[in-house]
């Protein structure tokens, strides 16, 4: 007589993991810090710059440890380049804060400490999100932004 059959649910055979793979540093290490905001210039031409430091072990990046100085409009430039050249939905930047640039404010406007900190956090989130995107990593503009001392706005856009 037929007995109730139990489905075979045993795991498939798999290779044991190499211990250096299991306990070694992961291949996906990518950390970008946006820090040390400094005001440069005088009077009405003042602006804030931030240090952007990247540490990574991804082979697509030439330098494993790089540090550059960037301002808000440089981040805007990067966003525009990526929106035009890649098929990615680019994450949003922290706001432009045009209101803060109007005169007769009671506070420091765009040089207010709390605003700079808020912007710093937003820029850090933005750059980490975009740098981790496999398609963005193919774009020359991202590499130039993160690892070259200055951004050449006349560069030839293209893939890495």
């Amino acid at each position, binding site marked *: *007589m*037929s007995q109730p*059959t*139990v*489905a*075979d*649910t*045993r*795991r*498939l055979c*798999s*290779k044991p*993991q*190499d211990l250096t*793979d*299991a306990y*070694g540093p*992961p*291949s*996906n290490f*990518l950390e970008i810090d946006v820090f040390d905001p400094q005001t440069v210039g005088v009077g009405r031409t003042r602006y804030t710059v931030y240090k952007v430091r990247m540490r990574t072990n*991804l*082979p*697509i990046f030439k330098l494993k440890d790089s540090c550059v100085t960037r301002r808000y409009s440089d981040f805007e430039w990067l966003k525009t380049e990526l929106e035009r050249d890649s098929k990615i939905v680019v*994450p949003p930047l922290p706001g432009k804060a045009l209101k803060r640039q109007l005169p007769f404010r009671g506070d420091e406007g765009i040089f207010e400490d709390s605003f700079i900190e808020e912007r710093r956090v937003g820029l850090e989130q933005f750059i980490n*999100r975009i740098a*981790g*995107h*496999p398609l963005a*990593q193919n774009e020359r503009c991202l590499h130039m932004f993160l690892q070259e001392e200055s951004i050449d706005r006349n560069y030839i856009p293209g893939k890495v």
Partner: protein
Amino acid sequence: MSFFGFGQSADIDIVLNDADTRKKAEHKSEDGRKDKYFLFYDGETVAGKVNVNLKYPGKRLEHNGIKIEFVGQIELYYDRGNHHEFVSLVKDLARPGELTQSQSFDFEFTHVEKPYESYTGQNVKLRYFLRATVGRRLNDISKELDIVVHTLSTYPELNSSIKMEVGIEDCLHIEFEYNKSKYHLKDVIVGKIYFLLVRIKIKHMEIDIIKRETTGTGPNVYHENDTIAKYEIMDGAPVRGESIPIRLFLAGYELTPTMRDVNKKFSVRYYLNLVLIDEEERRYFKQQEITLWRKGDIVRKSMSHQAAIASQRFESSSHPEKSPTQEIEENS
């Protein structure tokens, strides 16, 4: 005569001969309700009685003929007027005349072909039913009895595993394996995901079962996708060399067998979707079609004559499943 409600009318009742013994199966209707209907298989005979009960005893009922039909039809929701009948059988029960009292008529549709499984979907419905009609001059009296048909299959001779290496160049390479390509509705998907290269920050991984219902032909093809199941198989970040097991029991989900190009009108196909989600909510996925089939419950017990004929079209399992064995190590 029935204008002012004084004319004779009748109620029709269709009763199957094996109503006591025949199994019923649950089937979801268009509005989502689950009802039970008599279950039939291909080749089985459909036999019973049509009871015509006069409303006003003593009064005559004039009619243009009494008949019973067995119909199998496909109805596309966007084209409700047109029913595509792929099975249509008629038996005349009474010639035009009159009934002086309530009467019962026997009928038998012998070894009826029921080539497709009953299906109620998002845009299409395939159903089988008996319809008894008392024809009259102005308006017919009719009654329908829906039945459910299941199509059974045998264990497929060829049931290779699915094993593939996929990925994004220099970012993510995985090898996925599913133990079979054809699963029955109460089967278990056993598989594994092996990570060859992980240069993205993965947060978790899941496997989804997607049902795709395709209706229409040529330029008017319409796909309706429905995620039947989402099953998380990994939480956390894997590294190279890691193997993640999959064990997904299908019996818990509402699935139908795979239906390919039924009467050239519609298809129902199933896909396994392996989805990896990284820390920025980006989704990486790989879809793979699987074939689902219905295994018969027919066991080697004493069978009714009808079931014996029906089962000649499909054998019960010739490859009994292995039960898991455990090795016990003896420490001497």
